[in-house]
């Protein structure tokens, strides 16, 4: 849902950025509704575009394969008119550069995934800005762990790998050494709701706000990313989505094991981050077969769980240079080997068109 009529302005990079639209399907079909209304919005900011600004539709909260998603929706609803074509039509009709309107997304593979629309999609690193750097980053050596792992699994629906992880941790007696949440938003009511202990994170607004003490006192973050395989959503293929989950680990200076699509660690390295193959086997990331990948991940977790807290404390000390490197890259860099950080903005402009649409007109 769009919650504001204020668009962000970045005068240095010459950008006009909408509030995050949540979902392109919602944006085009429920909020904008028609080509004419979209053109009204663009017209309102056309003078910016004429001054070399880029108009950004911000959908960085998601990393879907948007073209696949929209085409699937068009097919189901028997609609011929693809709203992405409206953008192409607008730039052509106004004789403005064909890349002067951009859709920002967190699918780092979007250039490959969006085919003929690739020139209007921009991948960006978004969620690193949502989590402030942990305050003990100068004193990591003083951390004393009481738990070996932390793993947050708010949603279970269509994420069966998280249910598998929970059962594995429980039956291998690893939960006692972990902070964890599971199905805490209760989307699947036949599963038990397990909020993070002493921290009833059941509210969407608490998304980024669990106590930092959990991170300071646990060794390793088992990150269960939004996408692990293609079991659901056939349209959502070949995406590479770095959600807030990985940055909760990086910005809290924790090593990580990641349940994600194969090649995720490779992508992190490509962006400049360092991973932990000096300490454990990260070949799970190369495993294309999801059933084999999850098996390797679970066995890796078990092998780490066999270390004592003292041994993990020692291992952590050895990792501190990497953790510092990753934190610095996450919080200070503007570029990640060709990928941009989501632009910082200072100014805002109130959009009359947005306001009208928000008021139901």
């Amino acid at each position: 849902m769009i919650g504001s009529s204020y668009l962000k302005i970045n005068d240095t990079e010459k950008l006009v950025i909408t509030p995050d639209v949540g979902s392109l399907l919602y944006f085009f079909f429920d909020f904008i509704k028609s080509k004419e209304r979209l053109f009204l919005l663009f017209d309102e900011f056309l003078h910016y575009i004429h001054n070399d600004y880029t108009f950004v539709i911000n959908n960085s909260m998601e990393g879907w394969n948007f073209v696949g998603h929209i085409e699937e929706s068009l097919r189901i609803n028997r609609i011929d008119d693809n709203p992405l074509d409206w953008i192409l039509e607008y730039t052509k009709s106004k004789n403005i550069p064909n890349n002067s309107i951009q859709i920002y997304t967190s699918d780092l593979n979007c250039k490959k995934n969006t085919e003929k629309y690739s020139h209007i999609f921009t991948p960006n690193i978004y969620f690193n800005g949502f989590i402030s750097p942990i305050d003990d980053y100068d004193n990591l050596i003083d951390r004393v762990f009481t738990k070996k792992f932390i793993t947050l699994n708010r949603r279970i629906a269509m994420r069966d790998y998280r249910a598998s992880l929970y059962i594995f941790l429980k039956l291998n007696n690893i939960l006692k050494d972990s902070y964890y949440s599971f199905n805490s938003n209760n989307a699947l009511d036949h599963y038990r709701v397990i909020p993070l202990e002493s921290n009833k994170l059941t509210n969407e607004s608490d998304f980024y706000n669990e106590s930092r003490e959990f991170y300071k006192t646990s060794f390793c973050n088992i990150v269960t990313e939004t996408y692990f395989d293609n079991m659901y959503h056939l349209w959502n293929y070949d995406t590479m989505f770095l959600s807030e989950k990985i940055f909760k680990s990086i910005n809290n200076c924790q090593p990580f094991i990641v349940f994600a699509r194969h090649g995720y660690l490779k992508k992190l390295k490509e962006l400049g981050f360092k991973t932990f193959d000096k300490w454990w086997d990260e070949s799970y990331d190369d495993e294309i077969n999801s059933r084999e990948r999850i098996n390797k991940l679970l066995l890796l977790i078990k092998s780490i769980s066999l270390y004592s807290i003292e041994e993990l404390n020692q291992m952590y000390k050895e990792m501190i240079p990497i953790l510092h490197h990753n934190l610095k890259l996450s919080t200070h860099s503007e570029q990640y080997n060709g990928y941009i950080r989501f632009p910082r903005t200072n100014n805002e402009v109130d959009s009359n068109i947005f306001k009208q649409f928000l008021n139901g007109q």
Partner: protein
Amino acid sequence: MASNLIFSFISNSFKNVYINHTDKLIITTPSESFANSLCINENHYGKFQNYFKNFIHLFKNGYKFVINDTSEIFDVYYEICGEVGRGLPVSDEDNPLMFFTKFIQEYQIPNNSFEWWVENLDYMNTCPEVFRYLFKYKCTSPTKYNFSIIDSYKNRRIHKKFLNLSGNIKNNSHRYSLFIYLQSHDILKDSYYSFNSIQNTEYDSIHTLENIENVGQSQIHLENNFKLLGIDSKIVETSFCNIITDIWLNKDIRSWPKFIYPDIFRSINSYQPFLFVSINHPNYLYKLKELGFRTFSDFWDEGYDNHEYTIDRVSHLIQVIEYINSKTYHEIQQMYFDMLPILKHNYELSSNMSREIKDIYLNSNLINLTLNK
């Protein structure tokens, strides 16, 4: 909207019926849900009347007309009176179920001239009292699995501890989680198993039952109008315990928790003990016991079936699997022989259920009706 409801069987489904003179039954084929095939038309009672007038002379001689609606799991009353998923209430006047009452009164035939067989264990609770006389519970799932290996049980030699069919993994997180655990704990090496073999997803891993080319669990044989879902008999003859996981269905289908998952009868009909975990509902084993079946609490902990939450049932079930897996093949072989009285009891009960249904059809004449449109 509801005023235009009519049964589609007037023009389609009930074209072929069986007449059994021994049991004095006129019975439809065990087809897919009739309730689900409701259609909208006018003059609905008129068509109902025209159709059933064909049988007045039989009704007056004590025959019953049986709608065999046991091949589906839906709540018939809800489907008819809620208009399949739309939840619109139906007035008494428009309720097709009232047609039966009206017809009985109008033609002065016995009150029990109609029976609607359902496989919903809870029909007594979900159907309003006024219509309950019409519905009867019949468990026809046993007829869906037919094995010709029953004599082999006395000499059966176990080569694998488990049979675990996980053909459909999509939306079945309990099945997926269980499988992944068995894989990570090296229990699959002692199992026959399939994984995503029906490939209803783009998931990148497929495993079909070993040495069973083209005889996957989704293959359907038709025999005597009953569906028989079979796998190679060698698989069940040489594996000890069948780990059965049901499939997820929309919980809005109210009858679902009251339905015995048919795959259980794959085990029962093949003299195989089973473990069963449902994604949505506990206490399935209790339901089986209510039907007269015996389960395996003398041999392992069946408390796994009692937990309210799926995750707890799966976790507990896995502990039972690990317990069984800890046994040697010699011990398992002995356990199997110790179970034979239970397996025999279950098989015979299942066979009787099947036989009752099958005999009705085998002793019937197929009648093709020319229907007035």
